[in-house]
């Protein structure tokens, strides 16, 4: 049965690259359309898909409902083609999604300052800070460094790091 094979492949992924995940889920769906249509819609399947008469009837009803949700019409008398069966495995690395991602330099960098040119202001001394060590709000002119990007704060901005690992910049413009 193809769905059993898909499940086995998902389980293999969860046990391989996904090993040690906080939680794992496998979801099945099918892409289907009314006979004659050229584009498919994705219809979710139950956790343990079955193909007895009752389950097929429920799937057909789910297709009509999904079509109606997306396109405001359904065609209950039409033939439905079920084309592509798929399974999606999700392995959540972190159960708590509010924890900031660990984008850190190998060694924490000391705060410093650097001369930088800002349009409309000319050469200014800009504070240079390590993103991962940013706790108090930082006023521009400043440069925030991390291993993946550099953020420049012009003189009329200030920034504060958010709990989710972002940088919230406030424009203090008139």
């Amino acid at each position: 049965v193809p769905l059993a094979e898909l499940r086995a492949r998902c389980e293999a992924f969860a046990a391989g690259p996904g090993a040690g995940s906080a939680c794992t889920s496998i979801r099945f769906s099918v892409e289907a359309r009314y006979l004659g249509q050229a584009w498919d819609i994705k219809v979710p399947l139950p956790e343990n898909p079955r193909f007895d008469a009752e389950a097929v009837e429920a799937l057909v009803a789910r297709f009509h409902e999904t079509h109606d949700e997306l396109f405001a019409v359904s065609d209950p008398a039409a033939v439905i083609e079920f084309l592509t069966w798929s399974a999606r495995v999700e392995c959540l690395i972190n159960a708590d999604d509010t924890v900031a991602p660990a984008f850190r330099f190998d060694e924490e960098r000391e705060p410093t300052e650097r001369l930088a040119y800002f349009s409309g202001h000319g050469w200014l001394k800009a504070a240079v800070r390590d993103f991962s060590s940013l706790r108090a709000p930082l006023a521009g002119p400043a440069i925030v460094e991390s291993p993946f990007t550099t953020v420049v704060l012009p003189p009329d901005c200030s920034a504060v790091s958010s709990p989710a690992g972002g940088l919230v910049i406030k424009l203090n413009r008139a």
Partner: protein
Amino acid sequence: MTEQPTAVQLAIFNARMESVTRRMANTLLRTGRSGVINTARDFSCSLVTARGELLSVSEGFPIHILRGADLMAQCMASFHPILKRGDAFLHNSPYHGNSHAADHTIIVPVVDDAGVHRFTVLAKAHLADCGNALPTTYMGTARDVYAEGAPIFPATKIQENYQHVMDIVRLCQMRIRVPEQWWGDYLAPLGAARVAEREILKLGAEYGWDRFHALERAWFDYSEARMIAAIRKLPAGTAVAENMHDPFPGTPAEGVRIKAVVSVDPEAARIIVDLRDNPDNMPCGLNLTEGTATSGALCGVFDSIGPGVPANAGSYRRIDVRLREGCIVGIPRHPTSCSVATTNLADRRVNAVQRAFGTLGAGVGMADASGSSLPPSCGVVSGFDPRADGAAFINVVILGAGGGPGTPVTDGWLTIACMGNVACPFMTAWSSMNCIAR
């Protein structure tokens, strides 16, 4: 009392209207059963105010949408003075604002909780078949609408309280080839219009209807201001350009000469396109409808003024398209046949208008688009499929063809998909062509 919207609020309002028409177009494309809808995108979606003014359109053929949705919405409101939520109307009448009989339009009045008609949404699709005497949606040789054969629906109620009016459905099933395909292609624009109805009702509830209508007015005023600015940059004057359509059964032996007189008054910020000095209706399917005659003239104008002017009732305030009743590129008299009203003479007339602009001064207008209006790569195929027990099939095939016009700064586009007017294939290509031209 509502405040005057800020520029940002207006931009957001417009983007939300455009997202509604995109959802409509997506619905049509993804649910249509025939290739002309689900692959060739021969459809259009429009939003019209309760007063019958065009507010927003989806990417689509300019000949479908620049003018016509407004006329059809006005027609619906005059034929059906009491509009209720759940109503839908089928409209394909060339004598009441539609393009041609093969374009079936579903019109849905958006009615608020208090029963007030607030808005009208329209989804139009070219059908694979419309019940003509011959299995084609282009009856070029039909001497009148009776010879065409397609049933004509001038804003006929096809849904009431969200239920199909089965009398009309059965009529279509008896008169349109491959009825099961027609049924799917009827549901596609119906779904598109119902999707838009859901969205507009949500937006009305969010904004409040007074605010919604204030935003409509402000968007029209902004669009008019953009049009004024665009016209002020054009050279002043009056220009005349002509264009020939080949002879065809029902036309004079030398063919049909189409003339456009374009006057630009930058000081008053007005454009007049006069198409009245043209031949009378002819006993063939080439006659334009009021919708396509005006749309083509507007198309020639928008091709010539540069990008950045929204096409809606606001910018149209500055354009006066003059048509004559009983004219081949004007307002047809029933029972004149308009079966081929979206292509042949429509293309010739767009060419004449934009070339007239081209003679007004350097850097304005466009050249003639060469290439045929309906090349051999476009056509209706029909028959019985021996592989499927002789099942009947019919479809409009639309493949690419060359023939885009030269602009003041570019050569003609050879690879343009020309269906729906050589000069202006799709709104997007059309805008980018303008962008290149500037």
